[in-house]
């Protein structure tokens, strides 16, 4: 499976000039079996890029295709069987139980007016088990902490069981134990089930350690896109984030790590 974007431009305002574009002439492709990271400063268009890929936003110009079928030609329900997303808005407005939330991940598979099948329930229970939230299943979602809620949303997205998984700072509120556990889980699904994962990171070291390729965005344009070891350089970090750094290979994580020296 392959997602390809050709000359994608996007802005919330139809008439904006080139400078106002949130995504400018983006061309690139993502292939199954790889874990991609997207990094970049605030407002560089990372979330917008994921929203475009997930079909939530429509590009002003350009095409997004999954295996050369335009995503806009999929029905909402079929697209939901292909792409799942863990977004940053994980607030739930009504006090649903955790297990109801996880089961909502099966929505695209359950026909109208029918109850979830035994398989759906089994999948939901498995996912809660794997994500370590089984003990929360009867709690109300709005009574949980931010990190717990985020794990529920994560489990719901995994329950959707799609070949493509988009993560928008999905680990931002998790402690290090759960962050590593979820990353391990995602990594396995990429390796063993040939999934395609695109994840927005703020932590450059996590991005470097866990992903196969890194996409660097600034002001809606690609500044670098390639193997993690090639992309992460002191020059790129200086140019994109405007900070001084030291980039070294670290043998404990078998990847490059970034340090920010103090004076």
């Amino acid at each position, binding site marked *: 499976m392959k997602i390809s974007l050709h000359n994608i431009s996007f802005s919330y305002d139809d008439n904006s000039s080139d400078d106002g574009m949130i995504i400018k002439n983006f061309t690139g492709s993502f292939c199954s079996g790889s874990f991609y990271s997207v990094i970049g400063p605030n407002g560089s268009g990372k979330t917008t890029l994921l929203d475009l890929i997930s079909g*939530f936003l429509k590009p002003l110009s350009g095409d997004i295709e999954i295996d050369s079928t335009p995503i806009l030609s999929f029905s909402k329900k079929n697209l939901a069987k292909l792409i*799942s*997303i863990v977004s940053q808005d*994980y*607030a*739930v407005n*009504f006090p649903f139980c955790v297990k109801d939330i996880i089961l909502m991940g099966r929505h695209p598979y359950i026909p109208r007016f029918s109850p979830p099948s035994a398989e759906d329930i089994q999948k939901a229970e498995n996912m809660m088990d794997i994500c370590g939230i089984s003990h929360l299943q009867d709690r109300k979602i709005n009574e949980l902490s931010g990190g717990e809620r985020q794990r529920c949303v994560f489990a719901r997205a995994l329950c959707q069981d799609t070949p493509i998984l988009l993560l928008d700072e999905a680990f931002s509120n998790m402690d290090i134990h759960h962050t590593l556990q979820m990353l391990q889980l995602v990594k396995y699904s990429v390796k063993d089930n040939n999934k395609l994962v695109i994840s927005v990171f703020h932590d450059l070291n996590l991005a470097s350690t866990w992903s196969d390729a890194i996409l660097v965005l600034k002001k809606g344009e690609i500044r670098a896109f390639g193997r993690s070891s090639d992309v992460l350089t002191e020059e790129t970090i200086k140019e994109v984030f405007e900070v001084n750094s030291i980039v070294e290979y670290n043998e404990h994580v078998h990847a490059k790590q970034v340090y920010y020296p103090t004076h």
Partner: protein
Amino acid sequence: MILFSLFLVLMIFLSLSMGYIRIPLTDILNILITKTAGTLPGFGNINETHLAVIMDVRLPRILSCAGVGAALALSGVLFQGILLNPLADPYTLGVSAGAAFGASIAILLNLSNAFVSVPIFAFTGACLTLFMVIFLSYSSKNPMAGLSSNNLILSGVIVAAILSAGISFLKFIANEQVSVIIFWLMGSFASKTWPNVATIIIFLIAGFFISMFFARDLNLISLGAKSASSLGVDLKKVTFILLLSGSFLAAVCVSISGIIGFVGLLVPHMVRFITGPDNRKLIPLSMLSGAVLLLFADTITRAVLPQEIPIGVLTALTGGPVFCWIFKKNRFK
């Protein structure tokens, strides 16, 4: 659910028997069986006065009251679900102000056949307001952001504010008819007829099936727009259909019985305590509870109180304090 349905049926019978003329339950059963089955049961002498009271006065009033209660509660569930705002109710989008404005004009112009024209004017006013509100908040460039809850609520508030000023002006120039306008605005089920019952039942059934069809999508909408969309909900379509359904239900209610507050706001909240937030259970149970509650209030004003007071006043007076309690309790959770 069965319990609530039984409760509603019981309530209807009780309400039928209570009133200025007390009618024993056996006579009511007798009349109803005779009317529906057409066959005369063994002890077939029916009191003609009782027959007229039941069939022409009480039954249409009671059924339209139950129907309006159910419709208001359903509309409240839909609005709270779509606008993701616990304070949303059937009148949030200004439907009530529109209907009231339409009705006030009809009353002021003293249109000949007042019993037909006032509801029609009210319904037209409500629909025009609704389209105005959607037109204000909708933007073709960014449809999803346009129909966001904040935009809709704000547009509703603006339009309702303008219309309220309009209503005040109409009252000001209405002279002696001002009492008619005020009385209409407060709501009443007095002298409801079978056509009223038919109208509300048709809209109610349609509304019920539409909202049950989208009940699960409505559940997903509470996860937020992005998550709902990624789970396969066609947000634009679902939002639009459910908003229109909720508003039409509210418009029909207002045109039949005037503005009755708090049923649409309160009932969904109370039922949520029992069923939880799942709309597949919330919708039918809210409808039943709304019907029971409004019928209860109407029976009190009709049969218990020495003088009939407008039902809009009674529901707000009794519902208001309960709502205060819920609000206080939930705000600090």
